[in-house]
């Protein structure tokens, strides 16, 4: 028997926000991303959670603003192996990173297209984007695009980033790693499809900006990133094989989850502040698990965010906390729309050479909060600048003091301290003017200021 938590309650709307309502806690969360409208910026990324109508409808019922349908390919459908995921665990068994070797959809194109058509018809206010990957020739794209267009979906996302299996067949990352192919495929899509085209970029390259620039040259309406990163999460030291283990073997998979967030945010920022792609809309992807993660991606230039691992680990219900948290924070800060704080961190993100070489910050230890664990001391003593002194009080208590003249403000002590706010980094008044390395007389390639 199919049960539905959202409609079977005798009090269906009591205390529960209408899941499609864009106004949450008095704040408008709606977005218009490259022409695609959604009641909120939280979309599910193309992945197992968006494989079929059943999951997608549950996601919409839970309140997700949009969904990127798991990648469609040409017939016959892909065949998947058994044993598909593995994790990089923290010591408390929390999943730090997640790895998969699953391919694109293994369901028939016909069924997928039928379901997409019906779902879009039933949920007109939600974003529905179709991920596509077909071989790198125009005929293949010219064949599938009209079929997708007929479903009424809001746009397409080109899967040019799948790092496992598909590249061996000349698709996925094999395209995404070649800027000329990105441009060409994007061009074909714009030629054979009238709605927005989002190009999903692979991080398995040296400079993410090259791929984004190629997509823009091909006519892309937006980019989304990052796709997964080539990974091996762990080796079973008895079987001497990586996980997930298929029989006696394994292969590298695609890495995602919290661990990739810092990598993804840098790549999003690189594109957002690239003068060659200044207005290219970005759908941010990579380890987003909370409203704060989403806010950070948006501050770095994302117009929407896509989530997968957090939903796979917790279920679709997490979107409720994400929307609630984001909207409360926005209300608190006075941001009345996503647009209002989008890109806000970009002006403060720059190249190293533009940083103020005269800025000085040093560590300060709050002795009342210190629990005397000595972690800051040994970290600084062994691996940094020997700028924490280990003293003993008369009663035998330990006391750690910053040697201010030696401290370079590296933050290591603050990072290793287990007590929140015990060590703070305090900016110092140096009386020196702002000086970028570009203009520093110590720089042999100094630029006159």
């Amino acid at each position, binding site marked *: 028997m199919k049960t539905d938590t959202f409609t079977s309650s005798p009090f269906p709307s009591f205390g529960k926000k209408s899941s499609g309502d864009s106004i949450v806690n008095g704040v408008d969360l709606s977005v218009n991303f490259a022409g695609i409208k959604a009641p909120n910026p939280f979309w599910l990324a193309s992945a197992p959670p968006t494989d079929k109508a059943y999951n997608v409808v549950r996601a919409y019922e839970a309140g997700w603003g949009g969904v990127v349908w798991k990648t469609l390919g040409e017939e016959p459908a892909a065949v998947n192996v058994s044993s598909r995921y593995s994790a990089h665990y923290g010591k*408390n068994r929390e999943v730090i990173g997640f790895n998969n070797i699953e391919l694109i959809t293994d369901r028939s194109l016909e069924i997928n297209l039928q379901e997409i058509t019906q779902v879009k018809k039933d949920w007109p206010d939600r974003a529905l984007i179709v991920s596509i990957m077909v071989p790198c020739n125009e005929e293949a794209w010219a064949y599938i695009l009209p079929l997708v267009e007929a479903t009424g979906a809001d746009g397409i996302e080109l899967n040019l980033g799948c790092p496992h299996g598909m590249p061996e067949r000349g698709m996925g990352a094999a395209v995404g790693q070649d800027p000329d192919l990105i441009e060409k495929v994007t061009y074909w899509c714009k030629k054979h499809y009238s709605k927005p085209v989002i190009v999903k970029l692979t991080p398995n390259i040296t400079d993410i900006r090259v791929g984004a620039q190629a997509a823009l040259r091909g006519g892309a309406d937006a980019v989304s990133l990052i796709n997964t990163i080539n990974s091996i999460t762990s080796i079973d030291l008895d079987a001497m094989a990586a996980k997930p283990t298929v029989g006696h073997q394994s292969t590298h998979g695609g890495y995602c989850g919290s661990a990739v967030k810092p990598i993804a945010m840098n790549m999003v920022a690189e594109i957002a502040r690239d003068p060659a792609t200044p207005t290219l809309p970005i759908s941010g992807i990579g380890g987003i698990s909370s409203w704060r993660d989403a806010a950070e991606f948006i501050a770095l230039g994302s117009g929407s965010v896509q989530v997968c691992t957090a939903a796979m680990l917790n279920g679709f219900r997490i979107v409720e906390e994400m929307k609630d948290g984001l909207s409360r924070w926005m209300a608190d800060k006075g941001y009345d729309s996503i647009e209002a704080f989008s890109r806000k961190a970009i002006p403060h993100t720059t190249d190293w050479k533009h940083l103020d070489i005269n800025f000085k910050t040093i560590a300060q230890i709050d002795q009342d909060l210190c629990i005397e664990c000595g972690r800051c001391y040994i970290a600084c003593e062994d691996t940094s600048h020997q700028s924490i002194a280990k003293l003993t009080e008369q009663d035998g208590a330990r006391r750690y003091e910053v040697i201010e003249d030696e401290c370079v403000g590296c933050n290591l002590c603050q990072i290793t301290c287990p007590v929140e706010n015990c060590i703070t980094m305090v900016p110092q008044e140096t009386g020196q003017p702002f000086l970028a390395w570009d203009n520093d007389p110590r720089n042999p390639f100094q630029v006159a200021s």
Partner: protein
Amino acid sequence: MTNPLDYLPSAKEVGTYDPQALVNNFSDLHPPLTDRQAIIESQRCLYCYDAPCVEACPSDIDVPSFIRQISDSNINGAAETILKANILGGSCARVCPTEILCERSCVRNHDAECQPVLIGLLQRHATDNMQFEQHPFTRAASTGQHIAVVGAGPAGLSCAHRLAMFGHQVTIFEAEQKPGGLNEYGIARYKMTDDFAHKEVAFLLEIGGIDIQYGQRLGSNLALSTLRQQYDSVFIGLGLGASRALGLTGEEAPGLMPAVEYIKTLRQATDLGSLPVSKRCIVIGAGNTAIDMATQMSRLGATEVTLVYRRGLEAMSATDHEQEIAKANGVRIVTWAQPDEIMLDTQGRVAGMRFAKTVEQAGRLMPTGETFELAAEAIFKAIGQGFDDTSLSDATAAELDRDGERIHVDEMFRTSLPNVYAGGDCVQAGQDLTVQAVQHGKLAAHAIHQALAAKQEAA
């Protein structure tokens, strides 16, 4: 031996007897951590530098290191880290008053959680779950030296194991029929279950080179002078075999006995139901033995157990944690009262005790003049231990310099007699802890080894 109480009913005959419930009453007081619990708890350790817990450990166990090994699922590594500092780490994990040692000094007490890392239970996890194909410590090449150890308690065993590691041959002379000392005979049954003391000694002896002779009692069939002649060195780890007397008339009356004697019988009993139990009993004392006695009596079926101490709660040597165990078992603790008279019935058996209320004046304990009486069929004295008369009667042992009644040793654990060393409860005043005894034995072994090596070099 519970002869003084043998006229009392047995545990079977007191109240509603349920054999399984009785067994359960004496199962593990603090159940061990599961693997998962141990991993989670190990994550709480901050891996402090110059960690306060290590400073607090009388046996110098590298606590952050073994906990980190547990968190890496390296149980054998963790166990070896513990055992190389304290070969009786398994029993110490059970009986150490961690709440006043390592866990009290844990920096996490000052952290937001205000809860120390459960160091004792983690130590137990490592030592309970270690799996060595062969003994983890090896013997150095034989030195040809033979050392006599008097007493197979924690001090003697620890000394013997370390001496064996150095390549010496060791013979231990033990008065009882089993090794382990207080671990075997003197600790509450629910603190050391499943014959753990015996298993631990068996593990310790796997190193080889250690021979134990039982039924050898100093002053009776064993002479210190002979040991000095026949062995290259002697280590004395006698413990304190005699219970202090109350010094009252009627001390020999049926119904009154030393707590340690009862606990010894309880620890060895195969059928708890056969132990004599008095429904109403009194325990005199303030240490862990008094707590162990009172709590076990209560668990055996006594309904009115009163622990009486002449000073206040804060002066009790039993820790707060121990006091809580007693209270949780229905033991009533009465303070500021000292024994005044043993009350006897018409047959000359214990019928109760009269107590004199006390007060402290200028640091001295004084009777207030008020008295009260408690009715009881049994009285257990747990007011401290001393040397028993037989070991004192050994002519050579009687010559040893003393600190009070205990044997005097210097910082190298040397007694006043050349080549004779001592450690454990028989030397150290204050907290007579298993972990302290283990440390004494270990350090004495180092001192003995150094002295013998120096002598060999000089020869």
